[in-house]
């Protein structure tokens, strides 16, 4: 069991990019140029860490491997879309990550006691909803890309192309507010800022358009879901049950 516990701890630690970014921002006083205080910024990156922990998705890699090895075949003849299995796996892992994320937050507050804050219950609940919606958007985007396995056999390469805008535009490396105004207006039309930036700002108590953000998240889910259904239906017609 030891190796499993270590693996879970490593999962949690692997998402600490926001803390590196916080270090870069504060050491270079970059936050002054966008009028964000040190405390607000450290809360933002802590929340970005939490949002990332509970919205990270890797379905494209799991599905690609299962598809190429023929493991999808038994799932395809069950009366349940195989993506529900991956969805359940992600949820189960999120629950497993939770205690480790709390431990990391505990140490974060020890080193940054001025950042301690308690969000009000309403904001906390909305943040949980928003993080879950972010997870759904990412799950749908990756599921659509995963379905390309039916055509290309190497869908994860396409996912890597998506990783670049996700990294820069989601708010993982920098809050979207730090981008120039004309770039920002374009970024907000994409799904990326609603993956990390919006839920992290919401949870950290920074000024944000709550109803607008939630509406955009729901809108993206409504746009992506039929697209996933269509590509799934067409893709399964191409399935050749390789490896079996």
């Amino acid at each position, binding site marked *: 069991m030891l190796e499993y516990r270590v693996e879970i701890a490593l999962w949690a630690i692997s998402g600490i990019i926001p803390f590196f970014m916080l270090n870069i921002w504060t050491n270079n006083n970059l936050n002054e140029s966008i009028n964000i205080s040190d405390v607000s910024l450290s809360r933002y990156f802590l929340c970005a860490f939490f949002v990332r922990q509970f919205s990270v998705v890797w379905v494209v890699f799991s599905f690609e491997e299962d598809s190429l090895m*023929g*493991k999808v*075949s*038994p*799932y*395809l*003849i*069950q*009366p*349940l879309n195989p993506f529900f299995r991956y969805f359940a796996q992600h949820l189960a892992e999120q629950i497993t990550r939770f205690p480790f994320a709390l431990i990391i937050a505990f140490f974060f507050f020890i080193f940054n006691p001025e950042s301690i804050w308690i969000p009000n219950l309403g904001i906390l609940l909305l943040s949980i909803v928003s993080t879950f919606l972010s997870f759904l958007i990412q799950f749908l985007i990756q599921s659509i890309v995963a379905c390309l396995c039916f055509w290309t056999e190497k869908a994860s390469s396409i996912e890597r192309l998506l990783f670049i805008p996700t990294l820069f535009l989601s708010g993982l490396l920098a809050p979207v507010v730090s981008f120039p105004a004309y770039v920002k207006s374009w970024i907000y039309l994409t799904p990326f800022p609603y993956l990390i930036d919006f839920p992290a700002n919401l949870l950290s108590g920074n000024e944000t358009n709550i109803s607008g953000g939630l509406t955009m998240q729901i809108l993206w889910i409504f746009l992506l879901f039929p697209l996933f259904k269509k590509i799934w239906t067409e893709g*399964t*017609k*191409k*399935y*050749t*049950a390789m490896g*079996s």
Partner: protein
Amino acid sequence: MVQNIINVKNLSKSFDISSKEPGFKGTIKHFFRRQTKSLKVIKDISFEIKEGEIVGFLGANGAGKTTILKMLCGLIYPSEGSILVSGYLPFRRKENFLKNITLIMGQKQQLIWDLPPIESFYLNASIYDLDKFEAKKRIKKLSEMLEIDEELFIPVRKLSLGQRMKSELLAALIHEPNILFLDEPTLGLDINAQRNLRKFLQRYNKETNATICLTSHYMKDITSLCKRVICVHEGRISYNGKLDLLLKKLSPVKEILIVCRTEEDAIKLENSGFSVKNKIKNEITIKIENHSITSSLKTILNNFDIEDLFINEPPIDEVIGKVLIKKNYDI
């Protein structure tokens, strides 16, 4: 009258296959100008299977038997022709159709590797809308039939191949399907495990009247389970009918080893008009056609002083082997 549960008409399947020349040059060429060709692996086949039948699909590697099973269960989409299984078009994968079938592929896992099989069984039970009480009842019944008990609580990765295969079967049958598609179900199992699996399938078929479509390279699986076989050769059906008829057709004579009381009797028998294969001292091996075996033996026993005799069936693998390399068998 027993109804047809599977109807296949003019079914064909083609795959697009890309080929690559070896070496660096081949890789560059493959990257920029990939050569793809369409390969027809199933060619205009038609057959029916009745409810409760156990039918064996025979064929050499790559003949197309697994592709047929995959199309029958709805896993892959046919290129041409029609398939109707239990009144459904398999590829549409309607919930009621999927609840009626199962597919078991020799070495392919559906069990969760790091958890005991019982967890996968309960997961499958939920997928098939079984309540916990019903699931428990079925797991108990099937585990008794399959003779697995303690293994249910041991992580899958720690089970032997035979134990895993039995667990796979239990997972695949928990919803009590009435059509089973089995692709090499005994692959890699030892002789005892193979026998137990065959016994289980016979019992399952008898108790539930389930239809079973089976592919196997182990002839014992075919001879002990299937009355009817469909032989596939290069994507076409080369024979579709009773197994015993096929065997009679392919091996019309039996070899009989006769031990005579004296060498003189053996010489007398050698010169009496039978087709003699060989003779060593007082032992003589003769070939007799299947249809005249009773009368010929009667003649021999009445006219010669016989100490012992043995009737040898030709090895089944050898006989079936002939089918796998021939295009057509009309019987």
